[in-house]
Every structure is written in C-alpha cells, then in structure tokens.
C-alpha cells in the first residue's frame, strides 16, 4: 500500500511517499494512523495533530472510519488551502 504525505505532514515526517504493509487487523484510515504513528518518532510527532489531518483513499476524500482494505494509495494531509 502506497502512503503519501503532503504539506507539513511531508516536511515533519521527512518524506513524500512510502510503501507500507500494515497487518490485516488495520482496516480503517484511523487504525492506519495509529499504526503509522508507531513507525518512528517523526511519524509519532506528525500524527499527534490528528484533528488537523485529512485523509484520501485512492484519491478520494475519506474519513478516519473509512475502510482502507484493498486500497492502493492512502494520502494524509492538512485541510486544503488552494486557489
């Protein structure tokens, strides 16, 4: 599963993209956040601000209780500030 980070999540974690293989018990975006947060201290710090983090599953906006099973690409980012 490809994991993408944007904006301050990218700079805090220190990478734009990584490949992750969470266990089968990790079925939701929220559970994936918990699992990723344990990967490294930088992950842990970045994911502390959970209320400021949005998620997209296969390029569609999703919620923390959305199912990630079978997804190819999960992205984490702050609320958008375009235009």
């Amino acid at each position, binding site marked *: 599963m490809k994991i993408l980070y944007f904006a301050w999540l990218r700079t805090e974690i220190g990478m734009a993209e990584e490949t992750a293989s969470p266990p089968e018990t990790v079925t939701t975006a929220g559970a994936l956040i918990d699992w990723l947060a344990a990967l490294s201290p930088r992950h842990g710090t970045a994911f502390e601000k959970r209320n400021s983090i949005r998620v997209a599953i296969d390029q569609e906006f999703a919620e923390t209780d959305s199912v990630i099973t079978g997804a190819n690409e999960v992205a984490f980012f*702050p609320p958008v500030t375009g235009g």
Partner: protein
Amino acid sequence: MAVRVQSEAFDLGVETARLTKGRHDVGAVASFVGIARENNPDEGAEPVIAMTLEHYPGMTERQLEAIEAEARERWPLLDCLIVHRYGRFEPGDPIVLVMTLSSHRQAAFDACQFLMDWLKTKAPFWKQEETASGQRWVAARKSDDAAAKKWSKPA
C-alpha cells in the same frame, strides 16, 4: 473535460477567445483570476515575499473534474474551464483561472462563484508562504468552508 493543472502561466484573453471561437450561442462569459498577494490579512501583517503551492497530482485533476461535472449539472453551461497552477509564485502572479460560458449571465456568474468556492475547499492544494521570518504552511480559512457550504443542496 476542460481542467488543467500546470506550472505555466495562462492568458485570460487567449482562453476566452479559444472557448468562444466559432460559437454563436454564448451570451455570457464570467471569469475569475486568483492572484498571489503580498498581504494575507488573516495571517498577520508580515509581507509575503513568495508562496509555493504544492498539490496531489492525479487527485487534483480528479477533484477538479468532479467539481466541473457538478457545475455543469447544476447550471446550463455551454463551456467551462478551470486552470490551476502549482509551484512558486510572487505577489502579482496569477494562480487560478475559472471561466464559465452560458447563454445568460446569471448562470455564468453563479457557476463561476460556485467553482471558486469549491476549489478552495475541495482541490488538494497546500500553500506555503515565505516571509522575512521564514517559511510557513498556511492554515485553512473558516470563511472558505462557510462560502462552500452555502452551495450545499438541502439533504
């Protein structure tokens, strides 16, 4: 679908001429250009030297196409264009263009404003500002959420 995500500049005159060329049914062209500003009053008074827009390639196009399809469904548009740039911009640089064509002006105006309001909350772009104190990610604006909400259809 007339959606472009690019780093290059755009020209409003060229785009209007291209979209209206050979048509005899267009009565109204509404357009909006968003420009990088030196001051962001929401964020304090320090002048912005430059800003960088980061986006999510793939998802951006997908979201813009979905927004455009919704606008075409809600208003009788003859054509529609969204151009969103990414990269580094200095104050005065144009960043986003939305253009809507219709027979009558009200549909063109409403759809153009709808598209801009939704872009601000649904297009995966993130803005980093550069001031004398350094670089800083810009926080989302509550007023943008409110502007987008006014277009929500009743449940």
